[in-house]
């Protein structure tokens, strides 16, 4: 394949990764932005979303549901279940630690292992697939100069699937919805007020601890939704949360902890560069470059590209 079509293919793969990463990292960023705590177990909520998607689709298959119905059920139920587990963990664990940032890091490391081992015991060590609701191959056109000027043709191998395009569109729609929710709704306003000054929010009748539980649950639900979206492309496995967590941290550090806009921009940068570098060179080099980018950001702009200094 020529360079142009090859680059386009790499960019498409990168866009799928960016979409999933943006969803997952937005959850991490939302939790840090409002609660000022780092959730190290965030990757496990992503894994749990994927595993729950498999569980729900298996259950639905038993009831005779088709792939589309099964997937819709998984996309609705898995984030709800995972979000509820996270909200319960907030009330049972984080609230008792008074949301102390250092102790929350240690507690969520513990939570990471509990969830991971519970998944290993309940789900097993094998990777399991979920059938995509639709997965038609779509050949992509390319243009090149021919004998009659600019000509369109379909290079061999330049294709994607309808499901991959759906993942990109779904992530864009969900993130736009999240943005609208945060900026236009009363609940979003309450979350932003809590983020800006929790004590003053309390002084104006906002039940801050309840907001924290909801935010922690919502952050985990976003990670779970990312897990549901990725599982027809990448199988569900109990160890899949580790790499996703690392990439999410890279994204939120580059974008600026707590900045949703920054998270999305950084996810696109990291996702696209990962896709392109992985296709042209190796996935390892892509990870090395992403890590180097984090190091550069931490040295030259520690608050991230969109973060605010000394908040």
């Amino acid at each position, binding site marked *: 394949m020529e360079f142009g079509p090859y680059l386009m293919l790499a960019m498409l793969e990168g866009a799928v990764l960016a979409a999933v990463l943006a969803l997952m990292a937005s959850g991490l960023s939302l939790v840090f932005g409002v609660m000022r705590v780092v959730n190290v177990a965030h990757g496990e909520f992503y894994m749990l979303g994927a595993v729950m998607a498999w569980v729900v689709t298996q259950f639905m298959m038993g009831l005779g549901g088709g792939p589309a119905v099964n997937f819709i059920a998984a996309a609705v139920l898995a984030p709800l279940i995972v979000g509820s587990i996270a909200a319960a963990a907030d009330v049972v664990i984080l609230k008792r630690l008074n949301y102390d940032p250092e102790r929350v890091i240690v507690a969520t490391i513990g939570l990471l292992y509990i969830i991971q081992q519970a998944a290993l015991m309940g789900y097993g060590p094998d990777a399991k697939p979920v059938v995509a609701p639709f997965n038609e191959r779509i050949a992509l056109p390319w243009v090149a100069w021919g004998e009659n000027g600019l000509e369109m043709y379909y290079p061999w191998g330049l294709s994607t699937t309808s499901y991959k395009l759906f993942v990109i569109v779904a992530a864009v729609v969900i993130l736009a919805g999240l943005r609208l929710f945060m900026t236009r709704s009363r609940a979003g306003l309450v979350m932003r*007020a809590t983020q*800006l000054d929790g*004590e003053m929010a*309390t*002084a104006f*009748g*906002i039940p801050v601890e309840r907001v924290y539980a909801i935010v922690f649950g919502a952050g985990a639900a976003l990670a779970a939704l990312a897990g549901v979206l990725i599982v027809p492309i990448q199988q569900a496995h109990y160890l899949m949360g580790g790499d996703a967590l690392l990439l999410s941290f890279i994204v939120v550090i580059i974008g600026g902890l707590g900045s949703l806009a920054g998270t999305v921009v950084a996810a696109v940068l990291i996702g696209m560069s990962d896709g392109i570098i992985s296709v042209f060179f190796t996935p390892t080099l892509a990870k090395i470059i992403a890590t180097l980018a984090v190091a550069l950001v931490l040295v030259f702009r520690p608050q991230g590209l969109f973060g605010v200094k000394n908040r």
Partner: protein
Amino acid sequence: MFQIEGLTAGYGQATILREVSLQAAPGEITVLMGRNGAGKTTLMKAIMGLVRAEAGQVRLDGTDLAALPPHQVPGHGVGYVPQGRRLFSELTVAQNIEIGLGAGPKEASKRRETRDEMLELFPRLGERMGQRAGTLSGGEQQMLATARALCLRPKLLLLDEPTEGLQPSMIEAIRQVMVQMRDRGLAVLLVEQRIDAVLELADRISVIEMGRNAEDFTKPEIAPGEARLRAHLGV
């Protein structure tokens, strides 16, 4: 009627307030005075439940506020204008007012009415509704902080050094609002450092020193007791 009886409160292991008692009647301005570090701001926060009471009672019309979860205190009619304003700086003027209304009247028509009333009281805020609170001038920020607290339609209004760092015209505007609120029957509890600013305004002055009650002055005792008041404050 607002009454504090034997309130002991502090941060963690450090006790700041020891058996403090105080009262503020509706239609009166009670001024809380004391030197820096005397515990005035801690007392305001303890009333709001932001600093937990170790002992004592904080009663407003028979309800013990100290026994409530902190977020329920404003719902019982306590509006708070903290020291340094502490607006939600990234939110707009309209959104700050919306947050204040959230703990106020439940009916939509009452909320609209309250909002309109605030914009009538502080017309300048009406011109700045879409502006971020953090970009307002000091005086405008104070207006917004006061409006945000009044949106609750409080029975008790707590103001912690509301004129700090403001120009004279703004100080007068804030003073007018306090008088207006008192005349509407609110109990106003004001923390103020400057004696000259409160001599005429106060219906009652309560002085605290090192977290304890030092001396109280009723309206008729204020003018004759000015020298003692200055001695308490070291000015």
